[in-house]
């Protein structure tokens, strides 16, 4: 597409889209049809713009499964109870919408005993939850994530028990500390993301600075300070902390419903993916856990990602009603079919 098609043409584009919508009306009057024909035949740019409007509408209509369900749930959720018995397809669709609608919710378990009493928050699988804290800080929880906040008079402490969260910290006297298993992250006025998969922890800083230290070391030995655009990963096997450059958008891609991995063991990738998928994926062969994956997983199309794994890894996908299994591929046979 060259640039010249849109700068002088937005008015034409708009007319084309309006005509497209009018022509969709089965009761289009003959007179309007004649006007449209005249418009279309008056200028080849009109015809071209009209074709392009058609092409976009067709593209939208052709969107499949998950993507279609996502747009329906997001922009056209059902408003009132159904007035008539919906056909089978519509019912399946409605189930999809219901499943997606739940994702927005998440769970909130308040242990409200006092202003500084610990509060536990959890999101459901595939959920996404925003938490506003009393000090003006905010936390975004990814899928299947649980945290506990403990605000004391001299410290703001957060335990990340499992999952992934993005922290935006309001500056205050009391330090803001996140405990994520083996790592302790101390904020120095900032925004950062923490992903915890068992004892594998990755901290990425998008603004400001944080100090990351091993939780076990009370003296902050082995502390690293990270600035914006840097990420540290703790590998529980080697006990090593690896520092990398990271793009802020990549580090918090999950907020846009994408999970991004760089050289991550397959076991850890699956644990993260399972925080979003409807059916958990398990590894039957521990040797598969050491395969490493680099790439992007769309949270909304996990099933097709899993289905495609046999093309990049020596694995077979076995499908069960409530979960999927990845087994080592032993023969030329393709994976068994679902159900």
């Amino acid at each position, binding site marked *: *597409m*060259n640039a010249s*098609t*849109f700068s002088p043409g*937005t008015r034409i*584009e*708009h007319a084309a*889209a*309006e*005509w*497209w*919508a*009018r*022509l*969709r*009306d*089965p009761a289009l009057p*003959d007179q309007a*049809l*004649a006007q*449209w*024909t005249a418009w*279309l*035949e008056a200028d*080849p740019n009109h*015809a*071209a713009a*009209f*074709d*392009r*409007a*058609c*092409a*976009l*509408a*067709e*593209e*939208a*209509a052709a*969107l499949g499964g998950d*993507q*279609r369900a*996502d*747009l*329906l749930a*997001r*922009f*056209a959720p059902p408003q009132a109870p159904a007035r008539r018995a919906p056909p089978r*397809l519509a019912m399946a669709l409605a189930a999809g919408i219901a499943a997606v609608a739940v994702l927005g919710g998440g769970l909130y378990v308040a242990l409200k005993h006092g202003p500084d009493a610990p509060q536990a928050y959890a999101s459901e699988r595939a959920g996404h939850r925003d938490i506003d804290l009393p000090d003006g800080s905010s936390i975004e929880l990814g899928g299947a994530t649980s945290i506990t906040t403990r605000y004391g008079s001299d410290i703001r402490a957060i335990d990340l028990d499992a999952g992934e969260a993005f922290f935006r910290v309001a500056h205050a006297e009391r330090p803001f500390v996140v405990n994520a298993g083996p790592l302790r992250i101390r904020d120095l006025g900032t925004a950062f993301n923490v992903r915890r998969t068992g004892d594998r922890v990755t901290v990425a800083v998008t603004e400001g600075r944080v100090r990351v230290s091993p939780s076990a070391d009370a003296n902050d030995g082995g502390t690293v300070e990270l600035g914006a655009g840097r990420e540290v990963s703790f590998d529980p096997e080697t006990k090593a902390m690896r520092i990398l450059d990271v793009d802020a958008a990549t580090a918090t891609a999950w907020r846009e419903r994408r999970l991004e991995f760089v050289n991550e063991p397959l076991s850890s990738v699956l644990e993260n993916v399972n925080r979003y998928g409807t059916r958990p994926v398990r590894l039957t062969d521990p040797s598969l856990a050491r395969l490493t994956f680099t*790439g*992007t997983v*769309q949270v909304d*199309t996990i099933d*097709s990602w899993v*289905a*495609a794994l046999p093309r990049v890894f020596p694995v077979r996908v076995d499908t069960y009603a409530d979960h999927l299994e990845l087994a080592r591929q032993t023969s030329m046979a*393709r*994976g068994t*079919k*679902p159900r």
Partner: protein
Amino acid sequence: MNAVPRTMDPTEATGAPRGRRADQVVALFREHNAALVAFLRVRLGTLADAQEVAQEVYLKLLTLDEATKIDSPRAFLFRAAANLAVDRLRMRNVRTNAPVDPDHDDWHVTPIPEQHAAALQQWRDMREALDELPPKTSRAFVMHVIDGRDFAAIAKDMNLSERMVRYHVGNALAHCRDRRDRAEALR
């Protein structure tokens, strides 16, 4: 980008004798074929079906009795096209409502993630573009274009006039198109 209609001259397609009727059909084809195909494309949702049905329209006209007088050939052409399009959509519905063959599922032909990239990009762009619109506008668009519901049903659901629904759908389509063009100019 502008698809060139590949419909053949209807008289060549049928080898029909060149009578008055045939001359009339050829004239209609020369003058309005692009518009006819575009019209059918809107109604049917694919260019290929539009071209096929356009052929049927010409055939229908060619086989009309020479004595049948047509007052407004252009109006007649489009009316015949609209009727054939309705038939075609009905046929399609019969096919999609047929019982699903349990052994036929597309799971094993799922493309690899890289091949999904284009569709995912389209979906993401569309989601972003729709996010920028008033909720009624994006709702009308999604209900009509993606869910395939007609204006009357949407009007009822949204408690709007059909004219407003059409207006919202057109606006949303224009906005999505504009966003896509700007994105493609940058890529």
